[in-house]
């Protein structure tokens, strides 16, 4: 119970600290922190200039974490990300760490890199280590990649393959700020004073937060609901929904179920509960599943986006999930 209280308090402190630098974008900030607490990488999709980089940098400052930023370009090589062996003065090869060796890595415009480079990055994300010259190099703990991609400029880009998208815990759509928020952003960035976030947590705190999250129990009904949500995105098989049959080409992978449950745990703790509720899963569903479902042409023709599709899936699953005692 103390841990849960501490978790909430730490989470809120970090959030407040980040929000000092980032104007608005409350949900994105919270989602990024949820990803951090859940030990998952986050893919941010949004127009340029929406504060994605600022968010990541602020987060690292608030957490006293190492931060590195990689601006992906088509000519970037895997070694530019992971690091490479260089010949040292002593005529020996020495591994020079790449930017991936940081607690928080901002992979800016990841879709501009070639698949080869992307895959090197994503391997590091999954394995939490890189292997260069036959030698394995562990990455820092905690390790969080926050990648960004621009949804507009698709020319000359290499969209992330589905298998690689699956490695991301969350995909967050960064919205355009409201007029008031925009005014605040403009005033802050064009003025003299700019408030930088102060460190309010340590890397150990992040590790502790992750451990606490894992302790949160999940009841059978909630687990069943999470699995139902994931299965309902599939166009075939038992548990498939009508909307999935109509619009889905491929449903979410099992990682989707893992992600939604872990995110649900974080949401439960943030709500002051010690157990995961179905509401927590519903809250986490879009961020965890939107990049894991592949819609068909019919969905595109009907203007059904993954978010609309997931809304319909959640509605269908919730409708089917009825009170076991019917009176």
């Amino acid at each position, binding site marked *: 119970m103390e841990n849960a209280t501490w978790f909430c308090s730490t989470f809120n402190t970090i959030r407040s600290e980040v929000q000092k630098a980032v104007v608005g974008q409350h949900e994105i900030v919270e989602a990024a922190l949820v990803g951090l607490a859940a030990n998952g990488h986050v893919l941010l999709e949004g127009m340029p200039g929406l504060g994605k980089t600022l968010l990541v940098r602020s987060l690292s400052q608030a957490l006293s974490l190492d931060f590195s930023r990689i601006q992906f370009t088509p000519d970037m090589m895997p070694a530019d990300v992971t690091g490479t062996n260089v010949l040292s003065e002593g005529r020996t090869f020495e591994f020079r760490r790449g930017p991936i060796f940081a607690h928080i890595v901002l992979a800016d415009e990841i879709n501009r890199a070639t698949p080869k480079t992307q895959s090197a990055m994503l391997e590091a994300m999954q394995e939490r280590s890189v292997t260069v010259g036959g030698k394995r190099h562990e990455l820092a703990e905690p390790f969080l990649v926050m990648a960004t991609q621009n949804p507009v400029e698709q020319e000359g880009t290499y969209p992330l393959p589905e298998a690689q998208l699956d490695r991301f815990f969350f995909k967050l759509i960064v919205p355009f700020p409201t007029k008031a928020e925009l005014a605040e952003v403009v005033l802050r960035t064009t003025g003299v004073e700019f408030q930088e976030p102060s460190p309010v947590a340590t890397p150990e705190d992040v590790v502790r937060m992750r451990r606490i999250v894992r*302790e949160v129990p999940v009841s059978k*009904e909630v687990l069943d609901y999470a699995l139902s949500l994931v299965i309902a995105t599939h166009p075939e098989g038992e548990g498939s929904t009508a909307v999935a049959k109509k619009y889905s080409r491929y449903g979410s992978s099992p990682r989707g179920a893992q992600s939604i449950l872990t995110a649900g745990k974080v949401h439960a703790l943030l709500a002051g*509960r*010690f157990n995961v*509720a*179905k509401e927590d899963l519903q809250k986490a569903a879009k961020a965890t599943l939107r990049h894991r479902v592949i819609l068909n042409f019919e969905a595109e023709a009907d203007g059904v986006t993954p978010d609309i599709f997931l809304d319909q899936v959640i509605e269908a699953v919730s409708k089917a999930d009825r009170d076991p005692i019917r009176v």
Partner: protein
Amino acid sequence: MTTATQSRFTKFEWRVREVRAWKGLVIGSLVTSGISLVWTCLDWFGVLYAEWPWLIALVAVGLAVGSLCGLAAPISPASLADSIDRRANLENRLGSSQQVVDGEFAQAIQADAEAHLAAIRPAQIYPIRLGRQELISASMCALCAAIFLLGNSTMFLSDKAKRDRANLQSEAKNVERVTRENLEQPEAKQDLSDQEKQMANELNRLSRDMEKAHVSKEEAQAKENDLAKKADELMHKRADQAQQSLATAQSALEQMERGELDRQGMRDASISQAQMSQSELQSARSQNKAKQADLRKQLSEIDRRLAELRKKLAQKGLSEAERKELERERKLLEAQRKALEQQLKSAEEDAKALELSEEARKVFQKLTQDPLFKKLQELQAKMAKDLNAMQQGQRPPLTKEEREQLKREMEELARQLKDDKAMKEYLQAMLDAMKQAKGMGRMLGVGRGLNLGIPMWGGGAPGDDQDRMPYDLGRINKTDKPQAGRGSTNITSVTGEKRPSAGPEQYVEIKAPSTVGNRSAVPYVNVLPSYRRKAEEALDHQQIPKDQEKRVREYFESLNGK
């Protein structure tokens, strides 16, 4: 789960049972009121009869079964916890608290769930609602009651119609009683033939039709007549079978007697002679002796005359004509002698037989003195008397109890004499006859109960309103033999005597039609249309003999002018 949580949880469980019982009650009510509604509609159209206690019982059973099912339906703790979570918006706290027993958050979850559960009352999340289903159910019950009352109540009828209904219902009770007493006794049910079963069904249907006034007075009376006639036919059928059985029994009895004589070595003894009394036998013997003496005397006379004729024929000088005359006389005498000799021989044989009959008589007497045999003969006689009385439509001499006693005695005898084949056959035939007699009794009861050909409704003094009823029914005689259209009818009134003791009593008053020349109880114009209609129906159905059709038509045509 802590004890306090468990205790609260149990309250929720009981509340769910209560709500389910209510729901079951409503569903049961919906189903049974639906069935009742269909039933009352069928009752309205006379397809299937309904009584208000049956309808109420049906709905009550539906309510009871529904509520019991709801109350007893199993509730799993996990389901209940999940349900409470959903209804009280507890965000899966209770479900998790049930499942999480260890771990860092186990205690916190328990405390959290308990705190939230304490804040809600079972009735809050499981309310007993009065919704659409309840409304439909109540409406159906009300509709059912309305249809039933409209179809069965006399509330909206005129006074005359009410009286008619009351009379019909009273007669329906009579038909029901007749059916119950004669055809629906447990022992009678086993013994009924298919036709009798059909009659029982028709009687029940008629009774219901009358009870519910689904038939008019005329139709009811005609149907009663039909059924009474059918009962009479069935009774005669039973009577024929009973007579056959009695004949078989008689034959078996004779076989027994013959068997007894055979056993005593008197194969040639006559049974009829053996059955003679001592004096009868003595008389027969004396007569035989006298006859023999007479015959011998006649023979000696003929012999003397023949000797004289032979002497005359031996004389010479007789003319041809005289000789021929003597020869003819001689031949005649010889023929007479031969006949007398034969008679004498027969008489001598008779004498021998009579001698033998004496022995047979003794054997037979011994047989008839046997108490068992005597008993059998007594039973047979009683049986025959009973059957005859019933066949003639008279009150049978044996009561029901006596008949039962007779049957028991027969069965006892059958057990004692089961080895004797003829006896067995005899007893079987007697039992069969008895069975038929019982059947006859039942049919007689039905026929009498339905009052074949005699209207028995109503009562009171002639001329009063009730008394008119029997004559206003448009009855027609449907018997095969056409009745003579004239002749006087005597008023016969058979009235049961009132018992001196208190308590319910029954009596039947049978009235004959008005005597010719006396004042009619009903103006004929009131009954004429009904009579004419029935007559026309009878003509159409060719129920009136061909040669009488003209007469019937002329009769009704003659009444038109008056």
